[in-house]
């Protein structure tokens, strides 16, 4: 599904350079449930941005479903994001002016077109059918994250990336979100990559990759 080879990411900081990733090698199998852990500054978020085609590596090779994507232009990357990748963010990133349903529909907006029935179906999968017309401000944190998961899911992408999906939630809603993610992963043929600080959550995954100073420190099978 994913092969990363010697991936580096360097940000210019004035005259000096900030090397965030330096030579990451990682393979991710199709249908895998993977956690990425590491202290802050270890390059987790940068890695997820690269995996999500929001950013390009400074050097190295990234093959997604066999296709080299590390040198594509912004339009081609947008195209990949629209069809292949669903994001779940720590801060949910819902549009506050739109209803839960409209937010989920937005997931289809750039992936072929808005389809109300499919959006309702995705909301049902996360158990929020009854809240379809509510605005994000009328929902709890856990509910907002479920809407965000539905939005990521609605276009049936092969890859879902979650950046600390429980980071802004209390432990009960956090556990709920994790159980939704893991059961979705079990039901559907989805590759799920999740950043987390929480070792308990990480142990719901099949494999844990530990990053440190921009490199893979160790991998651990659960």
């Amino acid at each position: 599904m994913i092969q990363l080879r010697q991936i580096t990411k360097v940000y210019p900081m004035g005259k000096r350079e900030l090397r965030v990733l330096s030579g990451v090698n990682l393979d991710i199998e199709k249908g895998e449930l993977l956690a990425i852990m590491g202290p802050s500054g270890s390059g987790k978020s940068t890695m997820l941005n690269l995996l999500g085609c929001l950013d390009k590596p400074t050097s190295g090779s990234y093959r997604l479903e066999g296709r080299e994507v590390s040198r594509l232009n912004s339009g081609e990357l947008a195209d990949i994001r629209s069809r292949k990748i669903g994001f779940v963010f720590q801060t949910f990133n819902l549009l506050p002016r739109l209803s839960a349903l409209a937010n989920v529909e937005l997931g289809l907006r750039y992936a072929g077109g808005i389809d109300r029935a499919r959006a309702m179906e995705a909301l049902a999968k996360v158990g929020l059918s009854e809240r379809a017309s509510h605005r994000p401000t009328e929902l709890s944190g856990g509910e907002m994250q479920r809407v965000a998961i539905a939005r990521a899911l609605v276009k049936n992408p092969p890859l879902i990336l979650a950046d600390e999906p429980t980071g802004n939630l209390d432990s009960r809603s956090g556990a709920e979100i994790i159980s939704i993610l893991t059961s979705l992963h079990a039901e559907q043929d989805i590759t799920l990559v999740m950043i987390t600080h929480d070792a308990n959550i990480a142990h719901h995954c099949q494999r844990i990759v530990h990053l440190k100073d921009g490199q893979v420190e160790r991998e651990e099978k659960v």
Partner: protein
Amino acid sequence: MKRWLEPLSTAWVGVVTHKLRSFLTVLGIVIGVAAVISLMSIGKGAQADILSRIETLGSDLVTISPGAPTFGGVRGASGGVRTLTQEDAEAIAQQVAYVDMVAPVYSTSLQVVVGGENMNAQVTGVPPEYQEIQNLETASGAFFSDYEYQRGAKVVVLGSEVKETLFGDADPVGQQIRMGNNIVRVIGVLESKGGGFGSSDSVVLIPLTAMQQIVAQPRTSQGERVVSTIALTISDEEHAETAVEEITSLLRTRHRLAPTAEDDFRITSMQELAETVTEATGTMTLLLGAIAAISLLVGGIGVMNIMLVSVLERTREIGIRKALGARERDIWVQFLIEAAFLSLAGGIIGVIAGWIVSYFVSRTGVITPLVTADIVLLAVSVSVGIGLFFGFYPAWNASRLNPIEALRSE
């Protein structure tokens, strides 16, 4: 939902969410468009009004009036000279092609008395053709006939204002009035033509032959009978210019002007006047429109300002949309549609407002503004154009945002 519908509904949600802000932004465009519509329609209305007045005087009418002769480069007062003669008129009628009817006109101011009322009227001696040349209609009675002209009958036709002053609401036809030392009989009253150029409302028309019995018509040194003006019509408007040229050369010959001397007469054709007026009022309309367009430009800058604010406020939304797979073009189109939407709304409301202003201006009766389709179309398309033009930069800014930074923004 169709692909193009979503940005429209997003634009709508954006407008509704910030009602006051949207209203103020749109207001700039509304004022601009309303100003363009009302000022240009007033200009067009003024033009049509003036042209219709010229039309009532007869568009094929040509008037020759005496010009100021120059004495060693010093120009004398215009009209204060006696250069045109009845014989000039006869020569034009006989020798110039494309001339239909010719009327020598001699007018002078005379005291007119009836009962207790009296007034100083412009008594004008003319041949019967004058009625047709000037498009005159009688409101009551009739114009004098060829027969009355031939025998120099002392009969008069009153302008509507003169009739009003001397007779009020009574019918003057058949009544006698005193004019200088003579008694004349009223045989007709002219229909009012409204004020304006050489209005016929304030004249008393009399056969030129009768006029010559009442006042002594001056003569030139050659013994020709002096007239005030010569009115004539052109039989074929296509050849108006040729006719005017021929008249000019004929009169120059008759007046024995040296080749270097200036004309001692002026020829004014209504067609020419109409063209001049059309051109002048057209320029005025355009000028008014241009001034109004400046306010439209200011409105456009308002749109740009608000779009820049909107892009800034929605940076995070742009980041989210990009993460969901929006291409630069998608973002760009979305914000452009919003800008066009705002200015189109302003344009439509502005057309309505301009229309209302024009309506109230027409109610005052001074001028009847003409709201024509081309003005409306121009104003609306210019307003949308301004929206697109001033929306372009903010939209481009939005489309170029880095998705990661956009997602991180508050």
